[in-house]
């Protein structure tokens, strides 16, 4: 066995005044190996990466032993000189590729700077290295997709392009170890596939080892050779990736595997609909058009003639990549945006949002962002009760407590401020608030995307219960095919503002008719088939998985 690139022994990290973020964590990474570090929020996985990279704030107390191949001494020792480690031995890429680039500098300037930090070269030579690196990450200066990338500013690039540039910056110093902190979480499925592919190519071509931090079990299993499962700062389980997801030995891992909803080709979904599907009750979006003023003049069409129907007691999944217009369509459905053309109606009567506001409500992605931080949860839920249902004080309190119980929250939580609740609790409170208006339809815009898998399962269960009990119709907007597959009766695929394909979820996802849908499905890491093996198999005939 070759010498590991990194050996971590007994790492503990503690921030003043709180429980240890990481406790006694040991791991090793071999050259050319991909180690997936998986855990839910607060498990200490990002803290571990920051400790390895030496990026923890000074107040954090770090203990343990960290050894790098080709370097003497424990890098966690207090007086240890980390000179030449950052960027040269260890590089790092981050979750939000937009935030990891300085918005006021060109791409070229930012890459040149890193090149000059690690190599003694002139400005012109640095730019040549930069162009070379951009080419290596798939942003070429010449050829069919050529653009002058180095003169672009971050805001002119897409998320995937920015992540490629962050990878290019990480490659400058020829590091032996790349730390990847949820690098694809903020990206669309097809772009995620391309980035994972690029990372694995670097592993194959340059022998770089990667520690890949993610909360997504399917991604972890697809890219990782080995997986370490973290919970509350301690390792629960470690082993070969396939073995972990097929037969987890730790109870926590088993729960994680059970709660994760990977997209699979086979699994049929959908429930028996409560078919009262007469037109008189359904939410009908008819030929909706909406365009926005674009930067520098002109207009961009966000939604270009989409028709959609949600029956009471039915869950309709709306999937598509960012920019496909799915969110705009959802906002039009609840009256947050006005359609330029087309009609929103329930049954045969067009919706007048001044009057019928309570008929359709919305649940947003980030629960913390959609609560007033200075208002108690009960106050937030009481607002629609007062404004839309005209209740008085005592009645509001009673109804609000009832709603909290409905969504499975302890009514005592109602007197707390939003930030005192966990993400899952708050999202349930957000659902309670949406229900307070007494809606017949809910639009859920990525409502479970920011939740940990175990909590996600609870929220999905809640939504399904409301569907059955109250006959609520749901328009479920999501980029997560695994979730849509489990929950939606019918699914609509959107791209560039138009409908690509629609149909019963099981049929659509198991036998897509349109090439775009097929491409979308292919790019989802299932976790069942290791990405690396698949890559090795297909690179022979020149194709890449997910391409």
């Amino acid at each position: 066995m070759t010498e590991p690139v990194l050996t971590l022994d007994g790492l503990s990290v503690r921030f003043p005044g709180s429980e240890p973020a990481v406790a006694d964590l040991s791991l090793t990474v071999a050259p050319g190996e991909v180690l997936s570090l998986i855990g839910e929020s607060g498990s200490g996985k990002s803290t571990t990466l920051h400790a390895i990279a030496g990026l923890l704030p000074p107040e954090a107390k770090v203990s343990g032993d960290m050894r790098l191949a080709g370097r003497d001494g424990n890098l966690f020792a207090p007086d240890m000189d980390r000179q030449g480690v950052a960027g040269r031995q260890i590089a790092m890429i981050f979750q939000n590729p937009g935030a990891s680039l300085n918005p006021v500098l060109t791409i070229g300037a930012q890459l040149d700077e890193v090149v000059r930090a690690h190599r003694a070269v002139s400005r012109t030579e640095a730019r040549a290295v930069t162009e070379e690196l951009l080419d290596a990450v798939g942003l070429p200066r010449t050829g069919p997709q050529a653009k002058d990338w180095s003169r672009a500013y971050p805001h002119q690039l897409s998320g995937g392009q920015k992540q490629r540039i962050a990878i290019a910056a990480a490659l400058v110093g020829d590091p032996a170890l790349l730390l990847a902190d949820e690098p694809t979480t903020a990206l669309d499925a097809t772009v995620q596939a391309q980035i994972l592919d690029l990372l694995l190519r670097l592993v194959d071509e340059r022998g770089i080892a990667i520690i890949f931090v993610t909360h997504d079990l399917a991604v972890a299993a697809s890219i990782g050779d080995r997986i370490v499962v973290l919970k509350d700062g301690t390792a629960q389980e470690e082993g070969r990736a396939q073995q972990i997801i097929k037969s987890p030995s730790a109870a926590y891992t088993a729960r994680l595997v059970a709660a994760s909803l990977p997209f699979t080709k086979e699994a049929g979904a959908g429930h028996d609909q409560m078919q009262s599907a007469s037109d008189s009750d359904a939410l009908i979006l008819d030929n909706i058009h909406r365009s926005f003023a674009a930067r520098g003049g002109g207009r961009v069409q966000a939604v270009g003639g989409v028709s959609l129907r949600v029956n009471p007691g039915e869950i309709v999944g709306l999937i598509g990549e960012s920019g496909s217009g799915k969110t705009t369509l959802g906002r039009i459905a609840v009256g947050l945006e006005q359609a330029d053309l087309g009609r929103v109606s329930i049954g045969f009567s067009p919706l007048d949002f001044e009057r019928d506001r309570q008929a359709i409500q919305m649940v947003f992605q980030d629960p913390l962002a959609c609560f007033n931080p200075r208002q108690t949860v009960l106050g937030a839920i009481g607002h629609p009760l007062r404004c839309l249902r005209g209740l008085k004080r005592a009645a509001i309190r009673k109804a609000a407590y009832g709603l909290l119980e409905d969504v499975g929250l302890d009514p005592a939580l109602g007197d707390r401020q939003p930030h005192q609740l966990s993400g899952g609790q708050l999202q349930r409170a957000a659902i309670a608030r949406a229900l307070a208006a007494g809606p017949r339809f809910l639009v859920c815009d990525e409502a479970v995307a920011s939740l940990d898998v175990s909590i996600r399962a609870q929220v999905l269960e809640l939504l399904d219960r409301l569907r059955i009990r109250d006959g609520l119709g749901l328009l479920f907007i999501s980029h997560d095919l695994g979730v849509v597959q489990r929950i939606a009766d019918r699914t609509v695929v959107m791209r560039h503002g138009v409908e690509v394909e629609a149909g019963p979820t099981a049929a659509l996802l198991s036998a897509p008719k349109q090439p775009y849908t097929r491409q979308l499905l292919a790019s989802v890491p299932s976790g069942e088939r290791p990405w690396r093996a698949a890559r090795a198999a297909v690179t022979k005939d020149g194709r890449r998985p997910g391409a």
Partner: protein
Amino acid sequence: MPEAKSKVSPSRAARFAVFLFQRVVQAIPVLILVAIGVFGLLELAEGDAVDAYLAGIGAGDAGLAAELRDRYGLGDGLGSRFLTYSTRLVQFDLGYSIAFSRDVSTVILERLPNTLLMMISAILLSASIGVILGGIAAMRKGGPLDAGITFGALILNATPGFWLGLLGIILFAVKLRWLPIGGLSTLDADYGPVRATLDVARHLVLPVFTLALTYLALYVRLMRGAMIEVGESGWVLAARARGVPERQVVLRHIGRPALLPVVTMIGLQSGTLLGGSVVIETVFSIPGLGALAFEAVSQRDLQLLAGILLAGTLLVVFVNIIVDLAYGLLDPRVRLGAGEIA
């Protein structure tokens, strides 16, 4: 920088022209409103230039007053005076100053350079020192240096400008005799152009520093807060992870984005360019616009006052166009015509 644009595409130049044109057009209603407002405000004031003149010479009868009012067009009704006022403005004629017996525009243009020179130097000096001190304080956040800088700036902020100016005069002009007591240039001196410039600069040192020090706290706090905020952003962490030297992290990745609020504040402060200097101009006997405005008020020279206010408005509009352009230089996201990449 190597990526500096060597050629300006015609579309970019065209966009720039469109931007300037739009801003100038936007300024017109502002100027009209200010002109009307100025006229209305001055109408509300008790007494006119003739009252002030008669009070000044100590005597006069109703006949003389009426004759003078007639001569200066002060006896007409409100409507006709507004008509005269607005007709003159459209012709860029600011009127005639009774107190100085000269055209208002001549009087203003004579004083304008003095005030501009002093105020612009003071604001730029204040912003520069503030940016540096605020940056140092942010980097040493919570340390003794941070506390010292913040406290010092606060003390200066709380000190009245005239008092600071008087202290400066006593110390540097009277005791040490390094600098002149007041005025803008040495009288009766026949210097060449170089010595004359240096002479003006020597006279400006005390007033400019006095003004700059009173503004300093604002810029220190602004820069400190912005640096701390930017320091927590993702690209700073990413730059450190890439091994970018700390010096560059601070200057390029923290300092430069943090300049944006400072530039905004310079634009806002330009509004005080004219008014904020009355006290300092008085303390240092500088013949500037602030002192002029004071005289105009005390002499009830309403045409002069209106002219000064309008000149001030023009200046603010002009400075804000410059600030918007500077914003584009600092932040490519608001740059004119920032769109597709090449």
